[in-house]
């Protein structure tokens, strides 16, 4: 583990170009392609010339492109970049929303792991049986169903029919904040009633968001397990006289190596896949914020959101790498 620090620094450095690239792409989209967004920020058609000029000056829009870009990035880092629509720093806007999205992704991830892993393993162990076929088709159905169709189906079943969830508002965070993720805090502080509230509000969006990823994970786990099972080392274990339960333990550990990487990436993917879910379930998260910023041509906000997404993606990759190295002794930092 001695090399972990060095490894993190080295990997961190390779991420810099990615982050710069991603923000540049947004920047190009925002400033090169469209018509001038300033008018929209200043209040639409009725905006006065003076107001427009003021905004132009404030966002360095009269400067060359690299100055504009640097202004944006510097603003992001010092959190001094204001969202032109509500005059609040972009990252302050994002901060509160990110907690909602993170909690949503956490719930989704819970369902992904809960369904994807065991079902994938069962499918592999019972390969080529009826169970396997049913599970495989189920996984394909999960993958093929659009999230919005799934969402309305679930709303109809669980909200309208059985009323097992709430769909409005956001339950308050428990009074005692530690991680700032309400559901985790409510568990840590043993605040049972708050925990129930959080679950009631978030379980259905999480389930809906996670179901496609669960299908992907099922298929991946199945293949990975079968691949590990077909290795020569499995035969050698059998020849050693190892009982079945122990044999599967070996196979599972080997199969998990690639699965862990996928899981870390899926968590990043879940965070990014939230705009539709948040729209349908009316959750004020960053997905919705991104969507709104696009609608109102609010590019400072959009650049902030994509920057955040890129950080999430890069971190997910990093965590995947670290987990990989932890499980597989062949990988060293």
């Amino acid at each position, binding site marked *: 583990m001695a090399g972990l620090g060095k490894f993190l620094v080295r990997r961190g450095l390779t991420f810099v170009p990615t982050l710069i690239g991603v923000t540049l792409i947004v920047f190009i989209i925002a400033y090169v392609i469209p018509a001038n967004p300033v008018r929209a920020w200043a209040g639409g058609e009725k905006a006065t010339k003076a107001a427009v000029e003021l905004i132009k000056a404030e966002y360095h829009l009269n400067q060359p492109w690299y100055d504009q870009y640097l202004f944006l990035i510097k603003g992001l880092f010092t959190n001094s970049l204001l969202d032109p629509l509500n005059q609040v720093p972009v990252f302050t806007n994002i901060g509160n929303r990110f907690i909602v999205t993170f909690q949503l992704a956490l719930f989704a991830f819970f369902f992904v792991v809960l369904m994807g892993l065991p079902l994938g393993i069962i499918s592999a162990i019972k390969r080529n049986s009826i169970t396997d076929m049913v599970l495989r088709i189920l996984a394909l159905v999960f993958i093929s169903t659009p999230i919005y169709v799934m969402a309305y189906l679930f709303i109809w079943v669980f909200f309208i029919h059985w009323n097992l969830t709430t769909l409005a508002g956001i339950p308050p965070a428990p009074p005692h904040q530690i991680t700032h993720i309400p559901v985790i805090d409510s568990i840590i502080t043993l605040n049972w009633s708050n925990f129930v509230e959080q679950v009631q509000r978030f379980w259905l969006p999480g389930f809906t968001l996670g179901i496609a990823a669960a299908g992907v994970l099922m298929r991946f786990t199945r293949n990975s397990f079968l691949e590990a099972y077909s290795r020569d080392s499995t035969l050698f274990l059998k020849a050693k006289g190892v009982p079945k339960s122990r044999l599967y333990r070996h196979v599972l*550990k*080997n199969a998990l190596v690639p699965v862990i990487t996928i899981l870390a990436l899926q968590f990043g993917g879940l965070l990014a896949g939230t705009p539709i879910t948040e729209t349908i379930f009316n959750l004020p998260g960053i997905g919705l914020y991104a969507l709104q910023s696009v609608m109102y041509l609010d590019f400072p906000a959009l650049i902030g959101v994509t920057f955040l997404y890129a950080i999430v993606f890069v971190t997910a990759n990093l965590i995947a790498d670290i987990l990989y190295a932890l499980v*597989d*002794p*062949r990988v060293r930092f």
Partner: protein
Amino acid sequence: MPEPLIEIKNLSVYFYTYAGIVKAIEDVSFDIYRGETLALVGETGCGKSVTSRAITRLIESPGRIVNGQVIYHKDDGSKVDLLTLSDEEIREIRGNEIAYIFQDPHSSLDPLYTIGYQVGEAMEVHGKVKNIKEGITKAVNVLREVMLPDPENRVKNYPHELSGGMKQRVVIGVGIANNPRLLIADEPTTALDVTVQAQILDLLNELKKKYNATVLLITHNLGVVAETAQRVVVMYAGKIVEIGTVDQVFHNPLHPYTAALLKAVPNPLGEIETLESIPGTVPNLITPPTGCRFHPRCPFATQTCRTEVPSLKEIEPNHFVACHRY
């Protein structure tokens, strides 16, 4: 009269593949005597590995043992047919009384566990040690036995930290950990370099002497056979064609296939004028040739060879051949 340890009788293994039934071995019978090294020789796909794996029913789906008996003579004199045991009973025998060493040491070991764990596990699952911790402690002794340098520290190593030769020593260590009666070595040196191969063969010989174990050696390398084995079983296309002592088979090969095979190997220390090759190709085992399976490639083939399956006949003491010429 030597005393048999294992009697294999009319063993047939088929693989039910998508393409059809591969008759991997058919009607294979031979004995393994206590304390000997018996070599099972043949070319790729002749069924030698399948035979060795069928002894403890290590046949993976889509393969299936369709016929035969494997009579195991226990130390206490009782006999048991390994093919009729329950899954749990055969598991008790695998790795305990009959152990395996496979060809490729790189893929035999689980990359995610230390070698100490893997050797210790072999003892633990057969109740030789109380728990894995004790197993790892004892593994040091086992690894010393297989002459792995610095075993005290090596037990903590993962397979990838070892060279090919050292890995194969660990695999052998797993094999001998429980002091088995029969050690089945399936091409144990094919993946290794010549100098390492020589050392591994020496190690096997020494261990065999020390523990008075029986070894079934599967190989395609006639040189390895000549120097390690006492008796030889030659297989061709899923059938046994010849059985005899090493000297009998090498100096007086009876079956045309054995004779041709011996002439096709360049001997680095002898004079080689021209190598003789066997015409034709190895038959497909889904539709094997009728009669003697070697007849399409045999220079002496007659009408009888095409229609009748030859059976094993004893031509001289302990020297059997399956050929219509005798």
